[in-house]
């Protein structure tokens, strides 16, 4: 891959720019499909989509190596996809099929994948932060140079586990990259109605953690900040903290009537759609023509369409297996 740090004429190398655009389009396409499948009752339970926030996962995951660990929330379909979990496996999970990444036992909110070191898919707000601290502790104690990227929402910042985790990570100088996906709302609670101090970087600074805010709609800015932070974490600089300022374009979940925000606010943010932003950047630099744009869209669409076809052929786990995986299965001596 060409070096994203030496962009040539535009802000980014052409090939890399198109790659990032495709990554975001893949997530968008997957999420749109999820909504459609939910409406068709093929996906059930709670479904939280990432539409509008794609630049965050795309920019950050770009900077991780395959050995790094990822901890995410219930809004994690995009993280799973970009981490390398096949779309068909993600969808099969949401269909409740055996072929899903968790055999249908987890569902939309609980995507786990050992192969890509994706440790969930946690539906307890802030529940993943202590796990990330522990994963990083294990890496550090074992002398591995991996880092753990931990994604959580602005809502998590109010929980005790957030503060306990930041303190531990800083105290023990652990390789955690804390990524706060600040989309300004925790369900219906606006950040300003939930935090006495809304500047996340200041909070992290209270724990002596280097932290900065990033335009979370600009994938190039996210990637650059993440690379800087991740390099420093990897080099032994202890935990770092990024506040990714973003916005969710859709309802919190499929049950949310969105009484708490104005349509106008949503429309205003949609003008800074992360996909549209990168597209214009590339177009302005002459790095993307209408043909290439259409081609990227088709690529994302056909990947997801094919994934749905595969997921649809899934099977149900036999009922006899219901109580498996409560305890570890030991092979007979």
């Amino acid at each position, binding site marked *: 891959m060409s070096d994203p740090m030496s962009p040539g004429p535009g802000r980014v190398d052409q090939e890399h720019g198109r790659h990032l655009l495709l990554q975001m389009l893949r997530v968008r396409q997957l999420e749109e499909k999820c909504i459609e499948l939910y409406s068709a009752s093929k996906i059930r339970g709670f479904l939280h989509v990432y539409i509008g926030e794609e630049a965050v996962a795309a920019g950050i995951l770009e900077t991780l190596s395959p050995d790094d660990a990822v901890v995410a929330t219930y809004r994690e379909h995009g993280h799973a996809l970009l981490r390398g979990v096949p779309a068909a496996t993600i969808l099969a999970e949401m269909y409740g099929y055996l072929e899903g990444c968790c055999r249908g036992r987890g569902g939309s909110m*609980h995507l786990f994948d050992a192969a890509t070191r994706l440790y969930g898919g946690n539906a307890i707000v802030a*529940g993943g932060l202590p796990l990330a601290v522990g994963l990083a502790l294990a890496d550090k104690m074992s002398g591995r140079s991996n880092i753990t990227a931990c994604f959580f929402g602005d*809502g998590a910042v109010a929980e005790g586990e957030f503060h306990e985790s930041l303190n531990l990570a800083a105290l023990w100088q652990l390789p955690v990259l804390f990524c706060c996906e600040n989309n300004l709302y925790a369900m219906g*609670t606006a950040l300003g109605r*939930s935090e006495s101090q809304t500047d996340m970087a200041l909070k992290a600074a209270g724990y002596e953690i280097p932290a900065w805010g990033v335009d979370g709609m600009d994938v190039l800015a996210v990637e650059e900040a993440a690379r800087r932070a991740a390099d420093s974490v990897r080099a032994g600089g202890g935990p770092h903290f990024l506040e990714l300022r973003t916005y969710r374009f859709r309802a919190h979940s499929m049950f949310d009537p969105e009484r708490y925000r104005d349509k106008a606010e949503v429309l205003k943010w949609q003008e800074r759609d992360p996909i549209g932003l990168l597209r214009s950047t590339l177009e302005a630099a002459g790095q993307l023509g209408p043909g290439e744009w259409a081609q990227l869209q088709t690529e994302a669409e056909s990947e997801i369409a094919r994934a749905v076809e595969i997921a649809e052929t899934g099977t149900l786990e036999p009922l006899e297996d219901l109580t498996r995986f409560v305890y570890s299965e030991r092979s007979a001596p």
Partner: protein
Amino acid sequence: MKSSYREALRAGIREAMQRDPRVFLMGEDVGAYGGSFAVSLGLLEEFGPERIRDTPLSESGFVGAGIGAALGGMRPIVEIMTVNFSLLALDQIVNNAASLLHMSGGQFHVPLVIRMTTGAGRQLGAQHSHSLEGWFAHIPGLRILVPATLEDARGMLWTALEDPDPVLIFEHGSLYNVTGELDDDAGPVDIEAAAVRRAGGDVSLITYGGTLPAVLDAAGQLAADGIEAEVLDLRTLRPLDEPAILASVARTHRAVVVDEGWRSGSISAEISARITEHAFFDLDAPVGRVCSAEVPIPYSKHLELAALPSVERIMAAAREVTAVRG
């Protein structure tokens, strides 16, 4: 008047707010969002943000603050979205709410009500579906209520607020949309006694909360086969209405306990133990139990359904105990 379980709960909250200025509701998204399960919808407009108080995501913090406010003379209703999230507040509930009266030698009462959703059946997966009310019923100092009917959804709250000690109310998620007739003058109800929801002389089906509808359904189908079941709705898990349980068994000589919690170390185990301790010689058959499979509740629909008590399993258990000749 037609009412849903959700509307009945809301009417109970509204009445409490109107009757006592010390009462306020606090929790995550109870206000601007309209309640995560829409129970408090419209109350923000009616009572304002001081008394319909949105909290940050801080279960331990705001439950603890509810305890403090109760100590300070208020009558808080704290809403926790679901029982799984109450685990973040377990310290405050067990180490403070349940213990302060005793530790202070009887000086400090905690007149607090905590409401939360419990239970499975909506494919929400392991972190949103558990039935831990029986677990809370283990704790001395707490009163545990499990409204299964519209009358109880409407009426338990006020009585709970009058209690000088902490009361936890568990609302099963599958009940919110249940709709039926509620008396126009429905009001506070007792929170002491179990209630017989169906009379029958052949077997006692003992249950509570979210499984009551399935148990009544099973009882109806069993009647077609000539088995008449008495259905006992516990209504309160702590204290248990032991006399009502024993009286029912004395009438029918057979019992099946139906509980969505797991079987091991459960409230169903407690009920079974009390029956064997105090009504052993009334029994014509061993006590039966229908509980959830011992597995974190899976997402996949067929696995989830298989994990939960079903009408079929309830009927099978009732048939089994009635087949034993006394």
